């Protein structure tokens, strides 16, 4: 077309005008630390594996998950999921059922027989791990991935530590435990059971380049309670251990458990399963102060466990126990009231906490022990060079998840130490806090999906009585993730830019075209998950 001068123009010619020069601020894509990831003691990239789960890429989701935690089917049942406590979504409706999705992925992996692939070349380094509990297995897995040769020595008859001997089978079916342990064994990790290490120092003489002390707290704490000669008093750890070994103790028809932790509840619930028709948990404080998790309590109550709050066991006799009622003082501490009551009890189980058997380091003067646990540095190394420790054996919260985190941490530290390098912690990005989200964009669940979701949420308590999520509900649950602080490919930035200055490279991958971006900030403001920051331009 022979166009008239000036008044008629070729289309799209304004691309010659680079409006990016107007800009004072520029949008920058960021990856912030989602609160779930921040809270996970095992250091899982929860948001990252949910992202794959949302798309139904279950194997990829599982593989992302096991980068940090090799035991998802187990943890999907027994983890107390601090991730869910931290989840931003709780501010909107209810936290994402991360744990139930984890369990689904773990079960799916067992069902599909997904295995770990060791691609690293053998390093020739030999590492001994003492104890095959969660921290030992986790360390073994991460070390094996690096190409190291790993041997675990386990004093018990079967591997798993507290997962086998502390957690009742109704919470963690043994075939699940066995499946996930055997997957680690398949990597070439050697587990020597019924092999108690008596002297850690001596093992260095066997040619191990490093030793990781991963002993669990298997000793029940004792307390002085006046008791008759024939009184039957047991400790909870032993009860659970013997039950796990298939040789459950005789507890009688009426059982009193003394303590307020998860172990107390496990013991009471185990007692019920062993035939006690009455199991009473005596705890000296109130429900609010109870260290046991709410979910555990709820399940216990559902099973008919009776709670006696504000009570202490003051005497045990054959067939009965005397408890004293307590009252809270003005500071909220329980004080004796002098008011007593007798309960019928065939046996009393003490669940007053556990200790670690540290005889293995007897004589190792350079290893310090304080308050029943081993002192370690920031890299989990003890005073003895090459001896690392984690899990219940070091200070910190005694949970399986925490132990898995210790195992990973120790493995990285050992790996670096073996190469004479110091292990550098990765920088933690800033937290993806709730106030950075633009929640408008997360739509309401379709009406047809709601009942399924509700059902899925009810199923998320890892009780084997209730089945886990199926593939459909797992994907729904995963998709409830807000993807805090990390792009989830919603195309908002691409769409809302008045200057078409966002380039969509592919689904979920964008770039700012600085030739045209005027820096208005709409993309950052309308990003649902807060994954765009506006940064001042430096002239």
């Amino acid at each position, binding site marked *: *077309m022979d166009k*008239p*001068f000036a*008044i008629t123009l070729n289309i799209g010619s304004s691309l010659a005008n680079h409006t990016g020069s107007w800009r004072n601020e520029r949008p920058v894509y960021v990856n912030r630390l989602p609160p779930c990831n921040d809270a996970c003691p095992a250091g899982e990239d929860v948001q990252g594996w949910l992202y794959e789960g949302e798309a139904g890429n279950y194997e990829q989701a599982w593989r992302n998950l096991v980068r940090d935690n090799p035991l998802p089917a187990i943890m999907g049942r027994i983890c107390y999921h601090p991730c869910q406590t931290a989840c931003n979504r709780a501010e909107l409706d209810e936290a994402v059922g991360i744990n139930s999705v984890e369990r689904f992925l773990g079960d799916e992996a067992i069902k599909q027989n997904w295995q770990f692939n060791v691609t690293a070349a053998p390093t020739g380094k030999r590492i001994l791990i003492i104890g095959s509990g969660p921290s030992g297995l986790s360390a073994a897995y991460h070390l094996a991935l690096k190409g190291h040769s790993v041997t675990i020595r386990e004093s018990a008859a079967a591997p798993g530590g507290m997962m086998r001997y502390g957690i009742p089978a109704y919470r963690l079916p043994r075939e699940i435990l066995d499946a996930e342990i055997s997957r680690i064994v398949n990597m070439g990790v050697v587990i020597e059971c019924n092999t108690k290490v008596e002297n850690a120092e001596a093992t260095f003489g066997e040619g191990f380049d490093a030793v990781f002390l991963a002993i669990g707290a298997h000793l029940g704490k004792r307390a002085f309670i006046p008791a008759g000669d024939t009184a039957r008093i047991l400790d909870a750890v032993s009860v659970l251990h013997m039950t796990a070994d298939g040789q459950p103790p005789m507890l009688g028809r009426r059982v009193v458990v003394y303590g307020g932790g998860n172990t107390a509840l496990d013991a009471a619930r185990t007692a019920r399963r062993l035939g006690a028709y009455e199991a009473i948990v005596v705890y000296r404080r109130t429900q609010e102060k109870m260290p046991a998790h709410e979910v555990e309590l709820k399940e216990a109550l559902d099973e008919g466990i009776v709670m006696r709050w504000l009570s202490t066991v003051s005497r045990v006799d054959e067939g009965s126990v005397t408890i004293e009622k307590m009252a809270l003082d003005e500071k909220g501490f329980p004080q004796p009231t002098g008011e007593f009551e007798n309960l019928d009890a065939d046996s009393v189980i003490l669940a007053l906490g556990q200790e670690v058997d540290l005889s293995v380091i007897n004589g190792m003067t350079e290893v310090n022990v304080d308050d029943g646990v081993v002192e370690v540095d920031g890299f989990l190394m003890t005073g003895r060079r090459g001896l690392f420790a984690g899990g219940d054996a070091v200070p910190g919260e005694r949970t399986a998840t925490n132990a898995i985190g210790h195992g990973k941490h120790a493995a990285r530290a050992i790996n670096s130490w073996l190469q004479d390098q110091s292990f550098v912690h990765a920088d933690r990005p800033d937290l993806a806090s709730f106030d950075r989200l633009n929640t408008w964009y997360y739509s309401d669940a379709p009406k047809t999906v709601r009942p399924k979701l509700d059902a899925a949420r009810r199923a998320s308590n890892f009780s084997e009585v209730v089945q886990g999520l199926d593939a459909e509900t797992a994907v729904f649950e995963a998709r409830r993730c807000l993807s805090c602080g990390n792009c989830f490919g919603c195309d908002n930035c691409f769409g809302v830019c008045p200057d078409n200055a966002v380039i969509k490279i592919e689904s979920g991958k964008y770039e700012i075209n600085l030739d045209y971006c005027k820096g208005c900030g709409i993309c950052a403001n309308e990003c649902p998950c807060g994954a765009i920051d506006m940064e001042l331009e430096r002239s």
Partner: protein
Amino acid sequence: MLKQIEGSRAVAETIAACRPAVICAYPISPQTHIVEALDEIVRMGQIDDCEFVNVESEFSAMSVAIGASATGARAYTATASQGLLFMVEPVYNASGLGLPIVMTLANRAIGAPINIWNDHSDAMSQRDSGWIQLYAQDNQSAADLHILAFRLAEEISLPVMVCMDGFILTHAMEEIDIVDRDLVDKFLPPFVPRQVLDPADPVSIGAMVGPEAFTEVRYLAHVKQLQALELLPKLSKEFEEIFGRRAAGEHDADGLITKYFTDDAEIVLVALGSVLGTIKDVVDELRATGQKVGALGITSFRPFPLDAVHDALVDAKKVVVVERAFAPGIGGIVSSNIRTAITNIPCQIFTAVSGLGGRPITRELIRKIFASTVAGTMPALTFTDLNYDLIDREIERTNQNRRSGPMAENLLKDLGAK
């Protein structure tokens, strides 16, 4: 085909022969008969693929024509007087965008006082709008000029206004040759727009142009007008070859001017439009008595044919411009254009403002003009037939009384009292 027919109908049937694709109109006297006829013709299916759009104002009429023309459709509308003023903004826009719209202007006075009768105030108000303005002397040329107008408009991509005197031509019954459509097709090929809104080849039309190029755009508008000056005689000749007559009328009409005994005339009367016929009649009379008088008609007022006018008046001693409009505060409008053409010719030039608001320009009046010019009593600017009695009384009234009342009504009252 010869028909005894009203001027408006003749124009309408000629427009139909030009195969417009979009006709839009808003009624205003004395244009109404043209668009009424076109509505009927379109409804009867006598134009292939043509849309007739009844709009809600002249502003929209011109706007519809703009949209249609920019979409590659041959577009036509017609208006008059107040209607033209109401569409002034899109009138300028159409020429600025270079859209070859053809519009009939049924010339009519502009109020206040409101007046439906003929003069050229409406057309003169748009002389600088960038449109080409052609003035018809009679109904045959009124009809024929539209064919020329479409051809010219589309050749140079500018809109053309064909001016015909309201009532005097629009409502006059005459024998007119209504053109054969096949002949029109020979003269006027299908419209090939210079620019068009087409999804297959998109462009942006109507950009904002700042100081960096505005002067150039305006200058190019002038260049196009000058191109039209060259084209008009060529197209007129081509028209004559096909239709056997001149589009702008008899007597040396080349599409720019009409010369009537100008070659040896000492006194020449210059005029636009239908009054030329009256003047020619008087010229014939005076020539019969041996007086060296002549007449010059301006067909193309825009572009203004400076050279042709110069050549036609080069031997004249006295030139009188008979104007059907004037510029209050200075006088003649056409006169100043003529003056520009003859600045180097040693002749006197007079302005005779005549025929405003439908007052007849009679032979007697033309004779008087010639007579006073010959006698040397002709003032430089005169308003012929002026009723000084009425004016004096009104001036007196306003001098005596601050609240002298509405002028037009006062004059009418005086006329009635007479």
